[in-house]
């Protein structure tokens, strides 16, 4: 890609802001060397991908590293990209593979590493908890306990169920898209999600 011949980062061709242009078509422009098209995709998907990784990883720094790696892989794969599926399906497949590999690589660390929701991460300065200044100390403790419980119960789900719940509940993806990312049938995905939510309902009933 010739960066010198591309528009400045962040400056995007107005043609691409037309709603009729799909992300897959924009990715095809990245393939031809349009740097601004790539910038557009990063800006559009950075927040969803970071939030996906925050829920998949154990700490904020790892989550942001993984999210950056997703975009780097998109960039590296630009020349081999084929618009055979929705761009988001391809994007989440990359994200899912990275998150699953990270979880497997770090699984031996899990019993020792305690997730801290309120302590800021050394690298990013962020916490996994969103602070709410309207709560008093007692309410904040209760809220933190509930957050920890939700996080732990979702984490404890089998891998495929956890991925399905995060994509469905927090990324608002439909059954078809989740099934494509997970390479399952739509019917199997529906069943997977129903079982996952039933498990969570049972495990979290004391907080309801």
């Amino acid at each position, binding site marked *: 890609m010739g960066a010198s011949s591309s528009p400045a980062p962040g400056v995007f061709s107005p043609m691409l802001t037309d709603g009729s242009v799909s992300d897959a078509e924009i990715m095809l422009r990245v393939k031809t060397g349009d740097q601004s098209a790539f910038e557009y995709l990063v800006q559009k998907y950075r927040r969803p991908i*970071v939030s996906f990784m925050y829920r998949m990883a154990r700490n904020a720094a790892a989550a942001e590293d993984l999210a950056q790696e997703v975009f*780097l892989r998109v960039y590296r794969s630009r020349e081999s990209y084929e618009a055979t599926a929705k761009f988001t399906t391809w994007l989440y497949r990359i994200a899912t593979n990275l998150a699953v590999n990270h979880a497997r690589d770090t699984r031996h660390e899990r019993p020792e590493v305690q997730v801290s929701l309120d302590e800021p991460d050394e690298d990013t300065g962020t916490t996994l908890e969103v602070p709410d200044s309207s709560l008093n100390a007692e309410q904040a403790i209760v809220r933190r306990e509930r957050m920890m419980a939700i996080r732990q119960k979702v984490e404890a789900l089998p891998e495929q169920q956890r991925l399905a719940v995060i994509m*469905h509940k927090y990324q608002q993806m439909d059954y078809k898209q989740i099934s494509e990312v997970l390479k399952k049938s739509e019917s199997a995905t529906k069943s997977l999600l129903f079982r996952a939510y039933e498990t969570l309902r049972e495990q979290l009933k004391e907080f309801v």
Partner: protein
Amino acid sequence: MKCEQLRERMPDVAAGLSEATAAESSHLASCISCAEQFKAMQETMALLDEWQVPEPSPYFDVRLQARLREEMAKPQAGWAMRWFRQPVIAAALTVIIGIGVGLFFSQGPRIHNSQPMLAQNADPGSAVGDLQTLDNNHDLYANFDLLDDMDLQQDVTANP
């Protein structure tokens, strides 16, 4: 509508991602079991909503841009490397190289057997002849330590 059919759709409707159809609403109004399950799932969904995550840190974009610049600065892989990244071609090349190495080693003894022919052509006392003598008697020289142990050193020095 059957309970099974409604249960398939329940996560989507309970999460608010989709509206209940008339048939689904009707079933929920008439089936106590499904209605209870649906209410419980809605409550679970509301609880899961509490798990909020922060915005990307201010450093996210800066770090991503730095990593992208590094990526762009890397030289593009040559055509040979791009070809080699194709799994089928990589596998085929590996097999061809493997066969080549196998053939090379399988012909090794034949090459070795041709050495006595060369030894016969070298003049005794010449540098080449001496080297061939050393090579031909390699096993013997390698076992000099053993000969020492067997008290044969004197015989050897007496008859060089």
